[in-house]
């Protein structure tokens, strides 16, 4: 069974159902060779999911590219690196290289990771996965119109800043409010006075109640 695409609902246009498969129970520890095969199987699924998260939806291309990347990962796996980590490193490098081919290198930028993020966002804005499904993340030369679309899709959250000084102007609250403020502060800072005033207020309330209810 093939599960439909599961993109974030606020970026997607077509409805898609989501798998609600329960978590499988842990399997008994397999033999070493079997464990290795399982680990690479997991890496394959993960890389495939990662590419799919980038909206590479053509099944044949997805499987082919995943297979290529996993084959490369098998060759270039580092010591102590899990197959999943190796697969993702290669896949991430592939995606990054493809984006650099489309928009130029980010390594010179002050924050290369953020520059890469902006480039990735530009892919989304230019609808690259949907408009160029055959070229997206491929190894062939990138069409110039795709590059132009991505480069023109960069945008900023805000326009150019033009700072103004907006400082509060003092308000003279007038003698009554100023006196009230000073009194208020005085009462707040004197716990004994506060207790005395509270006692007086309660006594006054009791007197008032007695007066009110007296026929």
């Amino acid at each position: 069974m093939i599960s439909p695409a599961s993109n974030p609902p606020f970026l997607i246009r077509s409805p898609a159902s989501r798998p609600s498969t329960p978590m499988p129970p842990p399997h008994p520890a397999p033999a070493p060779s079997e464990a290795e095969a399982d680990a690479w199987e997991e890496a394959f699924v993960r890389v495939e999911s990662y590419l799919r998260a980038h909206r590479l939806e053509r099944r044949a291309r997805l499987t082919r590219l995943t297979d290529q990347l996993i084959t490369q990962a098998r060759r270039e796996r580092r010591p102590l690196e899990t197959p999943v980590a190796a697969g993702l490193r290669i896949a991430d490098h592939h995606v990054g290289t493809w984006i650099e081919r489309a928009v130029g290198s980010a390594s010179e930028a002050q924050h290369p990771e953020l520059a890469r993020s902006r480039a990735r966002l530009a892919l989304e804005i230019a609808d690259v996965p949907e408009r160029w499904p055959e070229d997206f993340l491929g190894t062939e030369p990138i069409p110039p119109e795709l590059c132009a679309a991505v480069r023109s899709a960069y945008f900023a959250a805000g326009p150019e800043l033009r700072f103004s000084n907006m400082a509060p102007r003092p308000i003279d609250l007038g003698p009554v409010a100023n006196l009230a403020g000073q009194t208020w502060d005085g009462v707040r800072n004197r716990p004994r006075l506060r207790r005395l005033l509270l006692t007086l207020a309660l006594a006054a309330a009791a007197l008032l109640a007695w007066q009110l209810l007296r026929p």
Partner: protein
Amino acid sequence: MKTTPEPRSIHTLGRGQVRRLRFTVAAITAAWVLPASTLMFDLHWRVGFDVWKGLHLALFTTLFSLVAFGSTQALVGYWRRRRYGPADPVRLLNTLPVGGTERPLPAGASTALVMPICNEDPERVFLGLRAIYESLAAAGQVEHFEFFILSDSPDPNRWVEEEALWVRLTKELNARGRIFYRKRRVNTNKKAGNLADFCRRWGSRHRYMVVLDADSIMAGSSIVSLVHLMEANPRAGIIQTIPRLVRGETLFARLQQFASRLYGPVFAAGLNSWQLGHGNYWGHNAIIRTAPFIEHCSLPDLPGNEPFGGRILSHDYVEAALMRRGGWAVWLATDLPGSYEEGPANLIDYAKRDRRWLQGNLQHAWLLAARGLPGANRLHLLLGIMAYLASPLWLAFLVLSTVIVYRQTATGLSVIPRPSGLPFVELGFGAQGLLLFVGTLGLLFLPKLLALLDLRRDPAQWRAFGGGARLAGNIVLETLAFTLFAPVLMLFHTKFVLNVFAGHSVQWVTQRRGVDGEPEWREVILTHLGHTALGAAWLVLAWWIQPALALWLSPVLAGLLLSMPASLLSGKVDLGHRIRARGWLTVPEESSPPAVLARVDTLLADRSAAHIPQPPGLAENYGLLQAVLDPYVNAVHLSLLRTKKTAPANLDARFALLRERLLHEGPDVLNTTEKVSLLQHADSLVTLHRELWSRTEAQLAPWWRLAIRQYNVIPPPRRSPLRS
């Protein structure tokens, strides 16, 4: 006697004419209050005046003055609308240049549309904004406007969703470089601080800014009209529109929108007739001249701490007063169509909103005597305070009435009133009391009658409200409903005032609208249990003192006793829909919806049809999930984060620990502050995204395993019945 002629337009409004208009309102109010309070004094005097009756009289006079002032505004408004119609010389709209909204805006009239938001439903916010944008584009003037969504949303899910929706909106409208999004890291000074932050960063780019609320909807033509009005009135600092309540789904919301739509025009015309260029600002659906706002309207702190002092919560009234202090006019654009907002869906939400407004308005007491503020603005501040203080005063009036009757009854003596001390009053004691009661009721109902008479002059609007019989029925229904709600609100407000005096501050609660706003049984029972108990106890006590007292108090006691069912039923969306389907409580915006509202409805219907429920188990942290897992949402979020040049070493270690906990144990182990901290830290977001995808399932929390499987092409195999 020398008479001042009527002005031809607000531009030729002389000082004497302003005085005459204000004197008219004051004189009519006094003409109601003086006889009524004299009659009340005489009533007490006839049976023996004492200090309690003096207090009772003072409360009566205060409360009656508020009612009389409102009715006077309706009366003057009705008279002006009847006398002048749209040609009313004090109507700001008459200064619109020939050609109106069709005229192109001048090149320098650059305007920012700013929408401060805080945890509201992002889908609704962005759909509303989309409708406004499309409406402006249809008006052919969108190139003069920039849109700013100013978020203070503390909920991490809402934050991420807002960012993604912003990208989608700008993409779908092809509005890159025209719609912008900003999220503050620290929500200093809430909404006022959010706007001030905008002004400091981008305010000077624009001559004007139109301030919208999260639920505001404005037609493009109305926004263009506002800019034209600003251009035509170069001394206007703020022009406030009168937003009409729309899209009410529950009975409670529909009652509000019906009442405000029907009675609003006469009240607005009356209000405008005395405030003129000394108007008020209600915080949204208004246009502001940016430069004077930046110069004069930064809010100072009040003496002391919250709830009374500290930051000013209800900033709008104060900003209007400060604008006036700076010499700029504040006008109310009466009759400008195309300005809408939504109201609270139920009584409890209405009270919650009032809780926030009440504290803000009570703070204004500090400013009543502040130097340099015009008298009209002091009056606005005072009326804002009294709008809430009236409730404890009304309660005190009712309690005092009960006590006075008790004191009289407890003596066991018959009441033998002396003859009236007033000349020309030859009424019996009972008849005089009845006259006062009927007079008060008459004054309360006068605006309703005037609004109906005003509407009668416009057959199209009359029909749009459903016609005569339906209108009469709706007014009766609305009157009965608000008679029941009023005592409950009285108790709410009284409790809130006491809370403020006890030093308890208010939290900034996000307002709920629509279906989400339905009250729950448990909430209703817990909220109204005290009201019902007080109503029952008061009924027993009043009946024991004197059955006539119970009868006199019956409208109040009925409201309290029925508070639970009234609150619950009026908040039901189903009931609201059924009432609408039968054509009850219809407003013209429903019988012939304006294009911008129809567009919002269409967009919302499309959204409902395409709605994909979030996966069970993941929904609670879905925003965080997307920001970490999805390459594009992660990119959106990172692109909007500010990078810090240097960070202390111990901070990195702390973030590393948080990241490890998040990936290894899942999001439930982190609190909201920790999640927000991670979302604010660019390096953590980069690392989390990479680590999450690079770890094996065994190294991840079950929650993340489930999340990552959303992208699997082939789900895990079903368990075979042949294997254990």
